[in-house]
């Protein structure tokens, strides 16, 4: 009975996410965002979510990560990290294909096979040991390639900084993940579980950086926002065009012009 309820939940969520994705791609053109700009019309709500996320970090994530990092040795944590990456490869194959990046799709597929067969079911990233570069991607990038605009900045509960386009991307990535679709419960939750455990490992490895960002910044919300947007635009290959982005947040603005 309970599994039927959950099934109907996912059957509703999937088409809903797809509709949202299509809607966003269709109407994205209205608010074009350049590299040099921060577009944050929902700042007040976002700041509320940011405080919520910090409270979650203080109460749950940070202590859990310390416990995990202290108890589990780095060799094992690395295996969890590799396994979590491994489980996201089928999704990378799909998204690379959607983006017309067949080389990337082939690479992700080959990587999945190699690491499954020689890498103990994906616990060892053998492909990386051989210098094979990863074509990591997501549905947010697919939407970007399809022409969807970035949209307003969003801070998501639990997941942190995002944009309206990448929020749709994340939802689609979760509910259309091949593992999640193909596997039955509870195996279908393997990928999210590995993701959460790996996130604790990452939180532990970057403890000082994360603590300094969240708890030592004069305005941790603004810092998280500027770091995320710059890095995300870099990942998507949004390069600045000379003469554009005069709003003061283009790294290629010449500061000597101002003084």
């Amino acid at each position, binding site marked *: 009975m309970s599994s039927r309820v959950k099934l109907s939940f996912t059957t509703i969520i999937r088409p809903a996410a797809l509709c949202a994705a299509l809607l966003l791609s269709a109407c994205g053109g209205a608010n074009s965002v350049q590299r040099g700009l921060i577009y944050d019309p929902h700042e007040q709500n976002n700041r509320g979510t940011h405080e919520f996320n910090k409270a979650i970090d203080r109460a749950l994530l940070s202590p859990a990560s310390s416990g995990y990092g202290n108890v589990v040795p780095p060799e094992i944590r690395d295996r969890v990290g590799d396994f979590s990456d491994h489980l996201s490869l089928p999704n990378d194959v799909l998204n690379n294909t959607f983006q017309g990046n067949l080389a990337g799709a082939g690479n992700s597929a080959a990587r999945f096979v190699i690491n499954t067969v020689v890498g103990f079911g994906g616990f060892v990233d053998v492909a990386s040991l051989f210098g094979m570069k990863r074509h990591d991607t997501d549905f947010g990038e697919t939407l970007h390639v399809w022409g969807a605009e970035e949209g307003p900045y969003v801070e998501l509960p639990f997941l942190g900084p995002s944009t309206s386009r990448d929020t749709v991307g994340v939802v689609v990535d979760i509910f259309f993940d091949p593992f999640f679709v193909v596997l039955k419960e509870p195996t279908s939750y393997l990928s999210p579980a590995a993701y959460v455990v790996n996130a604790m490992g990452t939180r532990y490895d970057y403890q000082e950086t994360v603590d300094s960002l969240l708890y030592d*910044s004069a305005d941790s919300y603004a810092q998280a926002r*500027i770091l995320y947007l*710059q890095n995300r635009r870099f990942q998507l290959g949004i390069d600045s065009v000379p003469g554009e982005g005069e709003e003061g*947040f283009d*790294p*290629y603005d010449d*500061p000597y012009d101002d*003084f």
Partner: protein
Amino acid sequence: MTTPMTISKVSRRGFLASAAASLAVLATPALALTDAQAKSLVDRAVADINKVIASGKPLNSMIRDFEKIFSKYADVNIIARSALGPDARRLTSSQSRAYTKAFQGYIARKYGKRFNEFVGGQIEVNGVRKVKSFHEVKGTARLRGQAPFEVNFLVSDKSGSSKFFDMIIEGISLRLSEKAEIGAMLDKNKGDINALIAELKKAG
């Protein structure tokens, strides 16, 4: 009579043209920073940084070394001023000196602290391109147990000597991230520059 006249006209024009051309060629390295000079600056800075990382010294002495490297190779003045934004223009000269000094120490502590995460790592310089009036030197950082990532330096000689005025790690500009942070600090201190300087001395 007309023939020599024409010849001299032509040769004079020819001389002027070639003089202008050779002047332009001669002038280029003297007036503007070249790709090679920009790259060599970053090569030297990176060699010094790698030396500090490899030294395995205690953190406090690493931070001091990093501050020296920062003040030697970076245009601290323009980074500090641009982090403050237009407000930098209303500083008195003594405020400006105090602010730049406090900013330099803050950056050294904040980023120098990270140096123990870099132990065993290496940065290599791969190439350089010209952007607007400055140069972008591209590098790769290889840290233990991590996928290699991009570290770029923006180099200009507008301060009078060639210095870098930004470091961009995977798209994240140090100058712009600090612009957001210094702006927030100034807001927190209700626009009081002296209070900002006092806070910077403790921060990082």
